[in-house]
């Protein structure tokens, strides 16, 4: 009767004391890690990824298909322009809110604080001196926000295009959605511009 062979040391290297990184899936010949632990590691990575994918999918779907039209409908029927007059076009801007043209029937109500506004109507000549104030006002408005360049001055400098002090077009400073031509545009033209902006908002996110 021969004595049993002496126990041979296992070829598996000793377990490293350092904790396993989550991205490290052990190889077949790698350190012995219980199966359950591996699955736990995989699940730990998978669950947040799945959650993220699912929620972003849901969010996109919800926003794109269900909520976006509602928001757009609400937004375009309650445009609040900033009550900021720059030059002669501001007179027509004011007339558009008077009794004769009555822009309020489209839900357009001028507000005095940029924090309550979602529409910036640049109604007049923008000089380099006032340019940074315009940018400040634009940046103070909450998203989503739109800009209408009213009149030739705001569109491209107008009669003062080559002047030494005038910004040749307000789109050099802020993104513009609607341009209204005219010097000055009549209040009807401003209302038409607002209605076109509403159409733009209706198609937003499609």
């Amino acid at each position, binding site marked *: 009767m021969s004595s049993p062979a002496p126990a041979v040391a296992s070829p598996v290297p000793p377990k490293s004391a350092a904790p396993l990184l989550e991205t490290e899936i052990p190889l077949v010949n790698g350190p012995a890690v219980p199966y359950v632990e591996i699955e736990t590691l995989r699940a730990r990575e998978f669950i947040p990824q799945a959650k993220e994918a699912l929620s972003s999918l849901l969010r996109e779907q919800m926003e794109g298909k269900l909520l976006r039209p509602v928001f757009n409908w609400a937004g375009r029927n309650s445009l609040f322009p900033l009550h900021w007059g720059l030059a002669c076009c501001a007179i027509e801007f004011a007339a558009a809110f008077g009794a004769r043209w009555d822009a309020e029937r489209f839900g357009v109500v001028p507000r005095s604080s940029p924090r309550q506004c979602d529409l910036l109507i640049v109604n007049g000549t923008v000089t*380099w*001196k006032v*340019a*940074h104030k315009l*940018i400040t006002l634009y940046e103070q408005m909450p998203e989503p926000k739109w800009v209408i360049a009213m009149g030739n001055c705001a569109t491209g*400098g107008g009669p003062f*295009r*080559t002047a*030494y*002090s005038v*910004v*040749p*077009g307000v789109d*050099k*400073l802020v993104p513009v959605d609607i341009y209204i031509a005219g010097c000055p545009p009549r209040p009807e033209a401003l209302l038409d511009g607002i209605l076109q902006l509403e159409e733009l908002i209706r198609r937003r996110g499609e």
Partner: protein
Amino acid sequence: MATDDLATQLAPRAGANILAVEPFQGLTARVRFRPEGALDVFRAVHDDLGYDHLSMVGAIDWVDHREVFYIVWSDVTKQYLGLSADLTGDAPHIESATPVWPSANWHEREAWELVGVAFDHHPDMRHLLMPDDYAFHPLLRSFKLHEPEELEVKSRSV
């Protein structure tokens, strides 16, 4: 003659700096003075002649020299008087009128930024109509109209 009276009234305090007192359309007279003695002339006009209000300060670019002019108003005689000085050289400058007429402040800021006439000892010499880093004096005849894009690059301040 009104101009002679003015000349004799100005003589004690600013006689040396007065070049001419001449009739001028729409004004009582125009006093041409040496820019070096500007402050003496201002004080004499204000204290001795009683012109207590400065209506405006302007500057003209005559290509070979620049002219600064002042229009002052007397509340006693209800009359306007013109003062003017010719400035020569590449960096024309004149003493500020603010110690005598504080209302010169903004007028001189405007004259400096548009025509490039420096006003010495001005209390608050900043740009008035132009952005703070505007590098030109745009009403000089040597100022060329820029294409908008070119000017935008040169005068960008935002």
